[in-house]
């Protein structure tokens, strides 16, 4: 699934150099490249697992505090920090159930496809000027393409389960994502016009001025509406409430994942939290300064290649992304679910035209004032 990791590996990068130093003399270069690709995939898996673990704990805490509860308090001692770890072990040890009527190969392939697609998308996300898997020329385009792949995985899961609930969930997911992909992409044209690049690294680098506050959101008056449209569309893309119709538990049991259990089920959850993190990170990069903040602006010019600066940058972007994730959770535990016709009319009749108006306005503004 990881085309770009392969691409990065074949053109040579830090991993291949590192491995070349360790490997014995005479190792063929393709073995080095394969090793580098493997290491990249390993790091991605670890990163996604960590993000998902922290997000699940955060979700339980946020939901608990919104409902005047404490949430998990015992596992691990401090505020139940190890709760997700315990849950993960439990899920790994669970019996792997495949329904008799299910289409077995597709049923097994679907969770892997969903997770693989989100790995592919995360490849293009730079955490700091020097922390990235592949500085892809068209990073944003790649992220949108791979996150649309997760839809196919969800549809596959829903169909292969051979259950009415699952199939309804899958159909809703397909209809919803096709409807919201348009406003998502179009609203991102507004910062793209200012940035002049698809690359997330270059877009972040362009927002370093004004003591780290030269963010795209302050560049023209159409940025804020474009961001709101982007955020709503991102909620729909990641199947988060109030757009969680594909897994609406009050109507469809658990939607497309009704028949899944154990580790396959947890793959869908890892994908959901990784997608939330990814969408928030894209929003942070294209609207809120990427890895730049007043904190990173404190570093003098000559210190910007050091490890400390890279870590502060990565921390800044991760913090901004988790602010986005927190808002998504806040909305989930505050808003009731929409009806499917409301979801459709919102996407096609309101968000898409509004996003187009924003693009037109921003284009005129940029032509006159920039």
């Amino acid at each position, binding site marked *: 699934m990881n085309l770009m990791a*392969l691409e990065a590996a074949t053109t040579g990068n830090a991993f291949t150099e590192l491995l070349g130093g360790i490997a014995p003399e005479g190792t063929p270069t393709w073995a080095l490249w394969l090793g580098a690709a493997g290491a990249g995939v390993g790091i991605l898996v670890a990163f996604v697992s960590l993000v998902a673990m922290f997000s699940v704990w955060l979700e339980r805490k946020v939901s608990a505090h919104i409902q005047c509860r404490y949430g998990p308090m015992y596992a691990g001692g401090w505020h139940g920090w190890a709760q997700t770890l315990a849950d993960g072990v439990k899920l790994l040890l669970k019996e792997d159930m495949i329904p008799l009527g299910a289409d077995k190969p597709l049923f097994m392939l679907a969770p892997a496809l969903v997770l693989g697609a989100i790995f592919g998308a995360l490849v293009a996300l730079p955490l700091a000027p020097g922390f990235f898997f592949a500085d892809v020329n068209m990073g944003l385009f*790649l992220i949108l393409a791979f996150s649309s792949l997760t*839809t*196919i995985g969800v549809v596959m899961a829903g169909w292969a389960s051979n259950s009415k609930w699952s199939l309804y969930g*899958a159909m809703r997911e397909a209809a919803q994502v096709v409807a919201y992909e348009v406003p998502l992409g179009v609203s991102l044209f507004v910062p793209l016009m200012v940035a002049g690049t698809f690359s997330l690294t270059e877009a972040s680098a362009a927002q370093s001025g004004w003591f780290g506050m030269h963010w795209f959101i302050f560049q023209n008056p159409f940025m804020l509406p474009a961001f709101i449209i982007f955020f709503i569309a991102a909620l729909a893309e990641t199947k988060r409430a109030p757009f969680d119709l594909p897994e609406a538990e009050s109507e469809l049991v658990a939607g497309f994942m009704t028949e899944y259990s154990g580790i396959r089920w947890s793959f869908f959850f890892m994908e959901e939290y990784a997608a939330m993190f990814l969408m928030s990170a894209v929003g942070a990069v294209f609207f809120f300064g990427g890895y730049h903040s007043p904190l990173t602006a404190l570093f003098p010019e000559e210190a910007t290649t050091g490890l400390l600066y890279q870590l502060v940058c990565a921390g800044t972007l991760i913090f901004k992304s988790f602010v986005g994730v927190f808002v998504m959770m806040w909305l989930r535990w505050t808003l009731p679910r929409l009806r499917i016709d409301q979801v459709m009319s919102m996407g096609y009749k309101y968000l898409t035209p509004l996003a187009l108006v924003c693009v037109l306005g921003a284009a005129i503004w940029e032509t006159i004032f920039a």
Partner: protein
Amino acid sequence: MDDKLQKPFYAALGVITLGLLGWGAASAGAQGIAFGLFTALTLGGSLICVWERSVVRSAFSLMGTFTGVAGLFLLLGADFLAVAQILIYVGGILALILFGVMLSPPDLAERKLSRVLGGLALMLGAVAWVGSKVAGTVAWATTDELPEPTTKVDEIGVAFLDPEGYVVPFELAAMILTVALVAAVYIARRKASDLTDPRAEERA
């Protein structure tokens, strides 16, 4: 088609894939492995599409074909085309195909072994015929090294809107797509007569 043939078919596909990977590794290193992988994806996806008894499985196997073609574009240095291939074909067109296929009733009798083999023979014959016509007449540019990907998205964008470039085909395509969209909405739209209750007169 027969369930008995299912296992030999997939075993053969696996062997072909391994062969392609090994041949790629032996002839061109890492790029060869990637080429072998993407070729296997493309060919395997299309073969499964013709072979499989279930229409939905056929549709899903197209994903392998589309992704494999995107990978081949990537190896040729056309990374914009590769990502567009995934976004449009896998994310958009395949989702629509699946939508249509899942809504249509299954018709298993349609897919008999003789029909599949006939279709394959027809396809191979057509490919061989076109290939033999093209191979002799086109001056293929060959190179020992694959090019570095150098495509810049902004160059493609400028070329689309350049009066000397592709602005007319680009705008024409946009017009056709808009007309198609409007027409689709017009056809799918419910007319006022559809919304009134047909039994209203009876009751009156």
